[in-house]
């Protein structure tokens, strides 16, 4: 059974689907060969608010190859939202092209269907829209504060008495932190090929959650769910933007019905800004109170964000502030400004990625004021109880993450006084931050099919509708089957992303690995159990899988499995924890800086495959670094459009921006989380990275950078913090 040990859970095997990807054989949504397919191009509004007064489609319709121009005038009437203001859900109804109203710049106002992609693109430019602009469009965040409302979704929270906590404090930090609009921008553009046959819909679509996409199509077009099939075999990244079935997909399904042919819609990179969600701008006001000895007395986290004028989305920025530290008096509030900008939506670690920037920056400010080492300060306020939910953590190794990371990073060499570590034109700084991310786990169904091959080996096929969004789901599910069936991973096939397969919660919220693997485990365990029960073989008797099939005198066997959180799971708070360390070199004159080293230590339960887990963390660190270096989407103040409209304008980090990255996983046994002890990792990596870099910049320069991104011009213009003696 040596082979099993090499390919089972915990082994750093290569991705099982890697070869398919590098040879181009892995099929992404827009690559499925569908006969008779045509192409459609969405048309975007060029005003932020108002009405379409007239549409001239004549020029476009005259072009060769153009089959249909669809606007609100001839679009199929779709099921609408139940109420005016609808909280956005991943399986929501998604009507589009239903009225002449325009709610934001870039909203879809039409679709051109043509024989070729080029014809559709060209024709889309020739459709003329005349608008009546509504001057009341809300596009300036700063000037629209008075329009903010408190969302009625139960997110506001308090414990203790904030005023009392502040009055007990010896030192108070009160600061505001700003993060801009950011975009998900997975490499693979959103895409769908949709077709109708006998009243049934078939869709190859790039989606994180297949079941929800199926429901969204069925409820928008009012057809039974069983008549919708969605396939997302490979997904080239999502980061949350592919949780929802976005409107291009609904337009494709509609167009396919109207022209009677399969329709492909691949959104453009510019439409990836305007039509597939975003992280909204956040203004986070932090108030922290502490005693001179470093004990926290009070912590409040007030977030002002924006949503669209017709839907509500609120990023839970204050989530981390409720549970990360032992603080008796705590308050978390939210306000939203309805704006004529598209509805924001969950982006990698919604709440934590941005909230931790505010919290972990403010914690660093407090440590500086207290003249305490920021690691000691955090350790002093550690808690093994989630004070928000008032229940214990299933496991929490934050202190270990900080201590081991400090050792690995060489934290002892950090100079407490900013601006004192210099080398030529460089100012050198060290920064630290703590990270946490909820590790949910959800009900998952899975199926295993066993086949005894002619060579005497058993081949297992695992099926579920879960997806691999670049994370390595195929590989870790195969490893799970290898582990529980005791066969090498080479004898396992994994089939994912098809709504014909058993239902899973899909990929999102860091629940994929725990859900998928436990689902696969349950199916494999049931298969072995079933085969043994059939022949009255005791469950504890060790019989190889091939032998079991032989004793059953069968060549093939199927079993299903279901895994879901235990009762015990509900009694604990289940989180992954981590610590980020970084060294930054800032040019004293030009404001340019280099992230020289990053060390990330995580406690994220059982690491299924160190290779794919490492990939998840460095991806997160990179995205976190992007938040600091340059990522920002800017809204034009007079027109309401995004002026960042391609990768030339929206600067994600390049290789040269990134440091030597060291990732460490602490061994952690957490059987409360789930039977396999798996915790989420997809979002842990991005959490609090931004704060660790900003804190390092402070340590280097004495400048407290509270607005992301931290660009050279901002750094040059910033003043050295009061109380910092820069020589």
């Amino acid at each position, binding site marked *: 059974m040596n082979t099993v040990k090499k390919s089972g859970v915990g082994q750093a095997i290569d991705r099982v689907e890697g070869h398919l990807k590098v040879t181009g054989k892995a099929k992404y949504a827009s690559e499925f060969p569908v006969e008779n397919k045509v192409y459609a191009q969405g048309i975007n509004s060029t005003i932020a608010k108002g009405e379409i007064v007239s549409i001239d489609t004549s020029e476009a319709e005259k072009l060769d190859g153009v089959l249909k121009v669809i606007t609100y005038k001839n679009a199929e009437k779709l099921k609408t939202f139940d109420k005016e203001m609808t909280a956005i859900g991943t399986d929501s109804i998604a009507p589009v092209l239903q009225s002449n109203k325009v709610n934001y710049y870039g909203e879809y106002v039409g679709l051109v269907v043509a024989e070729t992609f080029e014809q559709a693109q060209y024709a889309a430019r020739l459709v003329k829209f005349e608008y009546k602009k509504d001057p009341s469009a809300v596009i300036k965040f700063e000037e629209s504060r008075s329009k903010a409302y408190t969302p009625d979704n139960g997110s506001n929270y308090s414990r203790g008495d904030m005023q009392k906590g502040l009055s007990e404090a010896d030192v108070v930090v009160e600061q505001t932190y700003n993060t801009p609009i950011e975009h998900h921008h997975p490499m693979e553009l959103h895409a769908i090929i949709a077709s109708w046959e006998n009243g049934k819909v078939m869709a190859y679509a790039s989606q994180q959650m297949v079941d929800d996409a199926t429901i969204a199509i069925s409820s928008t077009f009012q057809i039974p769910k069983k008549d919708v099939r969605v396939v997302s075999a490979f997904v080239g990244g999502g980061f949350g933007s592919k949780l929802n079935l976005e409107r291009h997909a609904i337009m494709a399904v509609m167009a396919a019905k109207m022209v009677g042919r399969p329709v492909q819609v691949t959104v453009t990179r510019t439409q990836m800004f305007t039509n597939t969600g975003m992280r909204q701008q956040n203004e986070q006001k932090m108030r922290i109170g502490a005693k001179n000895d470093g004990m926290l007395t009070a912590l409040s986290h007030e977030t002002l964000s924006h949503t669209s004028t017709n839907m509500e989305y609120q990023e839970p920025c204050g989530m981390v502030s409720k549970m990360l530290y032992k603080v008796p008096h705590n308050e978390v509030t939210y306000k939203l400004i309805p704006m004529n900008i598209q509805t924001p939506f969950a982006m990698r670690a919604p709440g934590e990625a941005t909230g931790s920037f505010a919290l972990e920056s403010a914690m660093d400010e407090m440590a500086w004021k207290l003249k305490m080492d920021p690691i000691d300060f955090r350790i002093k306020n550690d808690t093994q109880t989630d004070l928000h939910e008032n229940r214990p953590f299933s496991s929490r190794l934050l202190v270990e993450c900080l201590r081991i990371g400090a050792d690995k990073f060489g934290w002892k060499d950090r100079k407490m006084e900013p601006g004192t570590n210099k080398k030529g034109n460089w100012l050198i700084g060290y920064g630290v931050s703590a990270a946490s991310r909820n590790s949910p786990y959800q009900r998952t169904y899975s199926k295993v099919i066993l086949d005894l091959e002619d060579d005497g080996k058993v081949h297992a096929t695992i099926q579920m509708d879960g997806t691999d969004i670049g994370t390595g789901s195929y590989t870790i599910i195969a490893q799970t089957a290898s582990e529980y069936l005791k066969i090498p991973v080479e004898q396992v096939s994994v089939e994912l992303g098809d709504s014909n397969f058993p239902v899973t919660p899909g990929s999102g919220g860091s629940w994929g690995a725990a859900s998928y693997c436990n689902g696969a485990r349950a199916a494999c365990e049931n298969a072995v159990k079933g085969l043994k029960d059939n022949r009255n073989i005791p469950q504890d008797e060790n019989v190889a899988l091939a032998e079991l099939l032989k004793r059953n005198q069968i060549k093939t066997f199927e079993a299903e499995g279901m895994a879901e959180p235990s009762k015990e799971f509900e009694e604990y708070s289940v989180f992954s924890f981590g610590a980020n360390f970084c060294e930054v070199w800032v040019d004293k004159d*030009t404001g340019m800086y280099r992230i020289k080293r990053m060390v990330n230590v995580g406690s994220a339960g059982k690491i299924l495959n160190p290779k794919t887990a490492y990939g998840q963390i460095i991806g997160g660190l990179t995205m976190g670094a992007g938040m600091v270096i340059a990522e920002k989407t800017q809204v034009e103040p007079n027109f309401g459009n995004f002026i960042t409209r391609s990768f030339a304008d929206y600067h994600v980090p*390049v290789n040269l921006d990134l440091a030597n990255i060291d990732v460490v996983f602490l061994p952690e046994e957490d059987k409360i989380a789930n039977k396999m002890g798996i915790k989420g990792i997809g979002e842990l990596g991005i959490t609090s990275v931004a704060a660790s870099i900003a804190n390092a910049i402070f340590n280097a320069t004495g400048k407290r950078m509270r607005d992301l*991104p931290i660009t*050279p011009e901002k750094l040059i213009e910033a003043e050295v913090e009061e109380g910092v003696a820069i020589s």
Partner: protein
Amino acid sequence: MRPFTYTSAINKEQALKATTKTSHYLAGGTNLVDLMKEDVERPDQLIDVNKLEYKKITKNDNGGLSLGAMLSNSETANHPDIRKQYPLLSMAMLSAATAQIRNMASNGGNLLQRTRCPYFFETSMPCNKRQPGSGCGALNGMNSLHAIFGYSDSCIATNPSDMCVALAALGAKVELEQPGGSSRMIEFTDFHRLPGDKPEKDTNLEEGELITGIHLSEPVFADHYYYLKIRERSSYAFALISVAAGLQVKSGTITKAGLAMGGVAHKPWKLYGSEEFLKGKKPNQSNFEEAAEIAMKDAKPFEANKWKVDMGKKAIVRALTQAFEREV
């Protein structure tokens, strides 16, 4: 993309003959094709000049080297003679774009890069450069990345090239072939225009003219040079501010200075006053600071790009310091 016809010319005569009022020459295409996809450039004919012979580096009569217009940016920047005699040019060119883009981009095409102003790129917004008479969206809009020198009410865009900043510091002439069969030379500093009331014209190229070569002045800055590019990320980002600095130092005195800035004007911004000031001075901190003051004294920033003045001064001092201290 709008439909267009494509012609591949095998020699300059063919290329010049094919040109019309609405045609474009196609070299690397790294900027033009992008702009066509965005519907910003709408030529009805592309004349591919990639088969033309201008792909060599040769000696010219000024004692300098000449760059073929069709040679790629990569081949130019990495050419041993350029690295040896014009390391400033090499450094500037290698700081631009990405390796992949530099492999495609031609020297002639680099001179014709269009601005990265967001109002230019978005066809639903006003832009006098894209659509004369429609107004300048940036003037009262988002202009933190815009010009602080030489702009007009009709356009405040900047030129995005790195190579051209180095060329302005080094001194060069651009050779042009004309549709009538004649050719002409134009000083590099006269090649690009300030916007005035015709921002749609980036350069003084006349209709149908084809760039065939760039003739560099005698190489005098091979010992003391630096191209400082301040940008948001380490590659594939246009300069917030850039400075090309070349110094000729003899017996502890500056005998000649070449200085130009990028990211501040509609054209590569040659710092004539600072160059003149530095001549005959000692290469030291206070003279460099004075040169920076002179360079920026006529800057007219907008509220949103005031930082460019401060950053510009620091960048000039740093570039000069690095240029002087550079170990040869």
